[in-house]
């Protein structure tokens, strides 16, 4: 047996042992509940939940952003002054990813993965990844105005987060528009 072969076997064995004793890094599961996310976003205040009704115009644009049908009559959100928080879901490859998005003055101030259920692509939950969305706003072509560096082999998860970020920005703009019209 070559020395390199011994090394190879050692490495594979070490990985196997490491897997058995690895610390509990949560690669999938629920990281934060929706109520906790809202409470944390607006602390110490706690705004009431509101609903944005999906008019035909709003639904059409939302479907264009998500590139799929949008079911439902309305979307729940929380708002305080010029800051709104949205909890939305989108499929990555096979399972829904639950994503919390905070928008302030038409720009994203936070994206947080609240639950990740896919077996791959969980890197989208890392703060280093979600931090890329800070300051992003929505362009008329439904794309974010900031470049988001992807994750090799997890393209579908990245696309899902991009879509939800865009959708939250659009919903926020509609809430603001309706508030202006009412006043």
């Amino acid at each position, binding site marked *: 047996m070559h020395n390199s072969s011994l090394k190879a076997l050692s490495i594979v064995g070490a990985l*196997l042992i490491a897997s058995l004793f690895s610390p509990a890094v949560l690669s999938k599961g629920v990281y934060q509940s929706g109520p906790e996310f809202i409470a944390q976003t607006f602390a110490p205040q706690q705004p009431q939940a509101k609903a944005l009704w999906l008019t035909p115009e709003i639904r059409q644009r939302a479907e264009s952003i998500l590139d799929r049908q949008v079911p439902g009559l309305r979307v729940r959100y929380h708002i305080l002054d010029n800051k709104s928080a949205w909890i939305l879901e989108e499929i990555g490859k096979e399972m829904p990813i639950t994503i919390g998005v905070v928008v302030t003055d038409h720009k994203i101030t936070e994206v947080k993965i609240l639950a990740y259920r896919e077996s791959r692509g969980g890197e989208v939950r890392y703060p280093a990844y979600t931090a890329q969305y800070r300051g992003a706003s929505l362009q008329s072509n439904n794309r974010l105005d900031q470049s988001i560096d992807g994750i090799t082999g997890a393209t579908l998860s990245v696309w899902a987060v991009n879509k939800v970020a865009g959708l939250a920005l659009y919903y926020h703009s509609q809430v603001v528009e309706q508030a202006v019209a009412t006043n």
Partner: protein
Amino acid sequence: MNKKLLALAAGLCLTSTVQAETPSLEQLWQLVKDQQAEIEALKSQIKDNDIKTEATISAVEQFTVTPVKTSKTKIGGYGEVHYNNLENDNATGTIDAVDFHRFVMFTGHQFTDNIRFFSELELEHSIAGEGKAGEIELEQAYIEWDATENLSAKAGLFLMPVGILNETHEPETFYGTERNNVEKNIIPATWWEAGGAVSGELLQGLSFDVAAHSGLYIAEGKYKPRDGRQKVGKAKADNMAFTGRLKYTAIPGLELAASVQYQADVRQGEGASIDGTLFETHVAWQADDFQLRALYAQWEFDEVLNATKAGASEQNGFYIEPSYRLSENFGLFARYSHWDNTAGAQVDSKISQIDLGVNYWLHRNVVFKFDYQNQDAPNGNGYDGINMGVGYSF
């Protein structure tokens, strides 16, 4: 006089009428109380209506609005058609062919949140059968179980956790019409085996895979790893192989990975045993519109293999591929590759290739490709020319 009396009587009448129509303070207070009660009743009614409306909408939503969810059984697929127009350096050989290189269907089923099945069935070169150009291949078919929230295990037939393209090779995810020759001829992608594997995360951004599985069978007279793929068709299993990979993805846009594989005997018990060790490492880095991929892979076999082909005990290759996304739809790339399946030989036997080309994404899942290749190989046997193709996935 009569007129005065009449006027007085009329005045008294009017005063008494006005006095009769003006409520007393008590009457006014009662009126306010009555109205307040009515307002309260109306407010209560509105509140009741709100509750009923909310309940109605919620009930409607319960039946009409499913949370984002898909069917438990999913299908998908990808495909690519290629056209190659190549001629070798000494003009003794040409390739002028159009080929539906790969037509692939995925089928998956989610039994529960933590148990799933995934499969990939491929028709290569459009037509299969005895004497035909292509073949039908089962490239993936495994059961995966998320044992804990950071540990998954799978069993069945799966792709080897080695290289960049072996596990992710939908046409729109890489540059170049054809897959690169280093991963094809050294690793050898696309490569699948049957066995069991465990995957998980050691630290945030540091994941691992370990697998025990069937191995290569490099028969007498053969020496290339690509010739040793048994494709899990009544595969010889005298000797298993073991693969491990470490992958670092903590930084957005960056993937660093290294894999090793060991097989005690790639001859599967026939003749003198030949052990083999594969080492592969790569980086894939994306920063805004710029992307860089670089990969190195090497096989080290027992020197017994040199009796079959001089220098075959060492086989290696690398490539480096910078690319730039000019727009959402358009990207340019260049690639330098170098590989050698007899690197242990005294004579120069390496093959090198430069590729230059473009990808045009009509949709993010539909891509058109065009590239030019310039290959240098021993004895003027390097092929130069153009490749073009169209690919999709869903």
